[in-house]
């Protein structure tokens, strides 16, 4: 004799209740969560968002124009009316720093994206093709690596002439070698995986495999390299402006502002302090974000 009640099928609720299961998450959701737990990285991200917002909206909201001169108000110290003081032409330094942020950030992002584009294509082709082609292409990258880049950037700027567009182009075509190396290494690692074989069996063309399968899977390292190359570009632009090869007046990047302020440093130190602080904070923020991103993408690297 048995009790029929014991052998009743479980209802669906009871079944799922007993299962030990978490909702499945994608790799990127995982990365995001790890990144959000990294306080410094979050801080970096917030600072970057804030600076971008200030650069975009700040100059519009300020009562001053970046190129409006007022000789009655030249070299004023920071005050309620001029938060960061004024420069020798009586221009408001706060709005000039905000405006400079536009230029410096534009240089940072655009130049990095150009070098990202070149580096990804170059490294992708090199790694995917392999063999002799790879040897030659990487030989070229090795040569580029051992060339003192900064000197060549200066030389290129002399050739194409100063100006914002020249800076984009020059930095973009100069600093793609690290990206190419990283993409190549990733592609080399991934190209023998089974999902690539599957794509090949399905008849996907090499171009499609590279663009749709390999590069998206190499996105992690690409992103990290990008995060570090943006501050690099900002830094280089500041350096070039400082040497006198940057954007031309009355436009002003942070480098130009700092360079202008050095002459009168002894008397008006705050004129240097604000643009220099802006550069440093931005670079620091990108570094924090980059470090956090690297750890989040590859938790094994965390020490």
């Amino acid at each position, binding site marked *: 004799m048995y009790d029929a009640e014991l052998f009743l099928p479980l209802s669906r609720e009871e079944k799922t209740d007993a299962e030990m299961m978490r909702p499945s998450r994608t790799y990127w959701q995982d990365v995001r969560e790890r990144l959000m737990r990294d306080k410094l990285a979050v801080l970096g991200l917030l600072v970057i968002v804030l600076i971008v917002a200030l650069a975009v909206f700040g100059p519009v909201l300020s009562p001053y124009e970046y190129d409006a001169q007022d000789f009655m108000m030249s070299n004023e110290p920071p005050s309620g009316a001029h938060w960061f003081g004024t420069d020798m032409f009586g221009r408001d330094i706060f709005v000039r720093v905000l405006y400079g942020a536009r230029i410096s950030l534009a240089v940072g992002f655009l130049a990095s994206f150009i070098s990202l584009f070149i580096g990804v294509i170059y490294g992708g082709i090199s790694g995917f093709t392999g063999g002799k082609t790879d040897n030659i292409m990487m030989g070229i990258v090795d040569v580029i690596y051992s060339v003192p880049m900064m000197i060549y950037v200066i030389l290129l700027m002399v050739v194409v002439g100063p100006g914002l567009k020249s800076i984009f182009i020059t930095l973009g075509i100069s600093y793609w070698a690290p990206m190419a190396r990283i993409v190549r290494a990733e592609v080399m690692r991934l190209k023998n995986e089974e999902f690539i074989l599957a794509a090949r069996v399905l008849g996907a063309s090499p171009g499609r495999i590279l663009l749709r399968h390999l590069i998206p899977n190499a996105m992690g390292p690409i992103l990290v390299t990008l995060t570090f190359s943006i501050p690099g570009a900002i830094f280089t632009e500041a350096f070039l402006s400082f040497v*006198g090869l940057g954007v031309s007046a009355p436009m002003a990047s942070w480098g130009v502002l700092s360079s202008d302020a050095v002459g009168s440093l002894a008397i008006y130190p705050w004129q240097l302090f604000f643009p220099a602080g802006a550069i440093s904070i931005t670079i620091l923020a990108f570094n924090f974000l980059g470090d956090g991103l690297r750890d989040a993408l590859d938790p094994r690297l965390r020490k």
Partner: protein
Amino acid sequence: MRKYIFRRVLASLLTLFVVITLTFFMMRAIPGGPFTDEKAIPSFVLEKMMSRYGLNDPLYVQYGRYLLNVMRLDLGPSYRYEGMTVNELIAGSFPISAVVGSIALVLALIVGIPAGIISALKRGKLPDRFAMILATLGVTVPNFVVAAALVYIFAWRLGWVTVGFWEGISTAILPAVTLAGYPAAFISRLVRSSMLEVLQQDYIRTAYSKGLSGRAVVYVHALKNAVIPVITYIAPLTAGILTGSFVVEQVYGVPGLGTFFVTSITNRDYTTIMGVTIFYSALLVSFNLIADVCLAFIDPRIKLK
């Protein structure tokens, strides 16, 4: 070993060749001749100058001549400093940069390496935190800002040093400290991470189990492997100090090669720009080569590659 060195020398020469070629054609690509100026030069004078410097010859003849001259270590005459050769100009200003640069290099090493070691040994504790904050600042603050800040504090506020002219070693200290900032920070991070890695290896445990003191293990056994990345970093380090010198020398008024290079850019003194670029590249390529060869001697694993 000999084969490895031979290959490296060959690669360096190839790099130099590429550098010279690139520089030559880039300079030729600049719109307007080297004598284009605000005030027009009479055409017969221009003609005379062009023929004197051999600029009327076909491009490949000029290129061949330049290549040959560079091989004979002759960088040609300056277009702006009448009667001076680029060699003389470099010989006049480079020693000053070399003094400042060497002090900076030594400073970067004697600050960076110990800081990295201490940081690794006291990992997560106060000294480590402190050193790493400084190191992060060191790599994020642009060197012209550091230069300006140091000038403001030590020259204007405290009046300890004078800036704006060259008086030998005493005026070299501040520029050297400024130049050393970034590499010192970078080295300390490098040493820290490699030290942490080395300390976890088996041979370190073996050394401890033999009863060696902690000091002997760290400074004799671990350090040897932990400084290897620093040697690899020597070439980029030199590059950083060289390029850093462009602005730092300007801020401090040091009449070195950096200042000179920047002036020749503003003057559009093409032969000088070319000459200094090639000189810098040669210097770097040699440092790279030296570092590679040293590394091959120190680390036998390298040869296997």
